[in-house]
């Protein structure tokens, strides 16, 4: 008995001393949450989007500097009025079953998103395409504005010019797929080898992929919901690249992993949203009192160790090519005390981070005499309460679907998008509506950016959100990973180029 215990002990001591690696062909990654689906038409979360990007290809894609690159399409022309897009497909792109990707496949992939039976909530991606509305309503069997004149050409006509359209085509939902007996086949650098639900997803190299740079034979995603255990697994060398939040960053920094960190500005905005239809938040001055009571610099300094950028507008500065950001100087916190006749309901979800932010906001408001009650709901209940306007205020973040300022302005503040379509604060301003509509249709990039800036200024002035901060993306990368690049969008990393060395 004693000997057995001794052997067990010795075994444990030596088996645990990880760090040694014998598999140089597999990249080990962490999934904080299991993706609910890998169907491009249905995927709405970053976890599924990140994986879909590796097993599928889109007409165009983004590089690490947000430049649009050809992917399935080798080139494209946009008409001067911005209404017609002609894409020429590469001739050597194949699905992982070996068949060629044709213009017809592209058309079918896009049609599928709009079909009623697919139940996709991404129909907005193609809503500007001519005839899309009729197709969605089932009045026509084909989208009139989408044609494949020959095998290698696809022509898309828009009802009106819509500048972000090319960016939207890079989203993972716009992946080119082939459906056969409900099985989806993709044409990306990898293909799914195994999906052990709740445990791991294994991708393997797609032998039919014609693009360059697939150096890994496999990518293994492990589902590890707990941040703390993920850090522990990284320290034992069992995860190669780990996305970090601030507590994880602190933990790894303390343990001496600082030189493995990478970071870059993220395309997101954290905010407190007001219920603009409810008193007193229907008044911009009242909203500003709430907004200015929050000392975000202090929060950023002490809670985030200065690792996030303060936000002064809804749009991350990189998307507006900087320029107008004198706003920071105009921003003064108030010290006046106000009084309201009732406590306000602040709605948050159950994440620890949101709870912490809510408690701190509550503290700052209390200093100005404003009483807040925090209501914490699970994610589903939270979204439902948001949709039904059962709140005075809420805390949430908005992450880019595509790198265009429009993505931070139109869904979130346009008066036609109230509720689940994105404008959860139910903000409405005719002047803003006109500007953003004009900007969306403007084909000249400079003019468009100017319109965006004007629209942004209105939002800043009206303050339907308290702009909190833009988070930076951080990750820790093991020293044996070579040629690692950080991508600003979760779906622009195709898993190519990266290698593991001995």
């Amino acid at each position: 008995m004693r000997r057995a215990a001794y052997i067990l002990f010795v075994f444990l001591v030596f088996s645990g001393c990880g760090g040694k690696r014998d598999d140089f062909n597999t990249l080990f990654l962490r999934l904080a949450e299991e993706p609910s689906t890998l169907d491009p038409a249905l995927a709405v979360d970053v976890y599924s989007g990140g994986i879909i990007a590796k097993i599928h290809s889109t007409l165009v894609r983004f590089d690490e500097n947000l430049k649009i690159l050809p992917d399935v399409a080798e080139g494209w022309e946009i008409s001067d009025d911005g209404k017609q897009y002609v894409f020429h497909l590469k001739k050597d792109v194949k699905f992982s079953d070996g068949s060629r990707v044709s213009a017809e496949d592209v058309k079918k992939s896009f049609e599928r998103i709009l079909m009623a039976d697919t139940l996709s909530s991404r129909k907005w991606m193609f809503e500007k395409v001519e005839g899309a509305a009729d197709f969605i309503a089932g009045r026509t069997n084909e989208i009139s504005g989408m044609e494949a004149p020959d095998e290698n050409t696809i022509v898309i006509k828009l009802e009106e010019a819509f500048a972000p359209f090319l960016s939207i085509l890079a989203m993972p939902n716009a992946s080119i797929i082939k459906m056969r007996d409900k099985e989806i086949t993709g044409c990306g650098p990898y293909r799914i080898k195994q999906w052990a639900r709740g445990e791991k997803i294994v991708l393997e190299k797609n032998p039919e992929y014609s693009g360059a740079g697939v150096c890994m034979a496999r990518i293994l995603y492990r589902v590890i919901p707990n941040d703390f255990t993920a850090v522990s697994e990284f320290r034992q060398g069992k995860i190669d690249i780990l996305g970090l939040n601030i507590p994880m960053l602190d933990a790894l920094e303390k343990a001496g992993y600082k030189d493995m960190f990478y970071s870059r500005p993220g395309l997101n905005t954290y905010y407190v949203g007001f219920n603009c239809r409810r008193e007193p938040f229907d008044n911009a001055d009242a909203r500003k009192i709430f907004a200015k009571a929050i000392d975000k610099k202090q929060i950023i300094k002490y809670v985030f160790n200065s690792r996030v950028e303060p936000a002064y507008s809804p749009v991350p500065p990189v998307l507006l090519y900087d320029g107008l950001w004198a706003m920071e100087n105009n921003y003064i916190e108030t010290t006046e005390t106000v009084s309201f006749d009732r406590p306000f309901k602040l709605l948050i979800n159950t994440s620890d981070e949101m709870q912490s932010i809510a408690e701190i906001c509550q503290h700052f408001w209390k200093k100005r005499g404003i009483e807040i009650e925090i209501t914490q709901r699970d994610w589903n209940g939270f979204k439902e309460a948001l949709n039904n306007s059962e709140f005075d205020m809420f805390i949430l973040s908005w992450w880019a679907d595509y790198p265009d300022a429009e993505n931070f302005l139109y869904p979130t503040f346009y008066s036609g998008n109230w509720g689940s379509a994105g404008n959860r604060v139910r903000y409405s301003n005719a002047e803003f509506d006109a500007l953003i509509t004009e900007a969306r249709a403007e084909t000249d990039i400079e003019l468009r950016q100017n319109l965006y800036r004007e629209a942004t200024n209105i939002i800043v002035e009206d303050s339907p959100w308290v702009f909190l901060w833009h988070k930076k993306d951080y990750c820790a990368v093991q020293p044996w990973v070579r040629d690692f690049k950080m991508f600003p969008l979760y779906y622009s990393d195709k898993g190519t180029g990266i290698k593991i060395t001995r």
Partner: protein
Amino acid sequence: MKNFIIRRLVLAVLTLTAIITLVFSLTRFIPGDPVYSFVGRRADSDTLNRVRSAYGLDDPVPAQFFCYIGQLLKGNLGYSYVTGQPVGKLIIGRFPNTLKLALTAMVFATLTGLMLGLLSASNPGGAIDRFCVLVSISGISVPVFWFGLILIIIFSNLLGWLPSSGMGNFTYIILPALTLGTRSAAYIARITRTSVMEVMGENFVITARAKGLSRNRILFKHILKNALIPVVTLIGVDLGSYLNGSVLTETIFGWNGVGNLALTGIMNRDYPLIMGTVLFGSFIFICANIIVDISYSFFNPKVTYE
């Protein structure tokens, strides 16, 4: 005996029916709309409605109920709203993991519990006894999630001996099994102690002692055989409750079992998945109890069921 088993089975079916009705009404009559779990942040209300009707959520509740029962009788637990997979397949896929964890935890609990209990009982009131009693009560009192964290800090972070999360070779199971098994170990120790002490006082043991049999022989041959009945009951019942998934342990250690699946289901309001996992859990629990009851009469012929 035969009658007893039949009666238990009938009762089990009735209980399960009641549970189905109960949980079904719990999921349908309470506030909460599951569609938000599977549409994105930019969903138009038309899509929301379409999704609702595609999942039959806008049918009248009784119709939904009978539809569910009908499918259930065909052995179909329905399809997960979120992943679209058959619920039965999802549960069966996770069950081996839960089984592995439950069995390992139980083996650990039984060995430790019996050892502590016997140590205690061999010298009641002594220092060892008091120590064992304290240890066992501590085991019952420590919050599972906190204990798990402490184990991770010590064995994964400070010592680096064991992985803290996930599935893999057998080193992965040690910490979750310890965390899960501690409570049972403590209970088993207590029951063993009490029951061994009770048996010790009985006539046949006193006779055996008077006959001059060795201490060990008495302990193992006479006392343990009789004292184990309540222990076996406890093991059976505990195992039954582990098999329906230990939510907390599985969450902390990222163990891919039924408990984790159930929690995901609840958080997403994935009604078919909630129904499936709760039903499965109750089913296992009821089965375990029936088996325990039947085995009772094998261990102790004195027990009869009329």
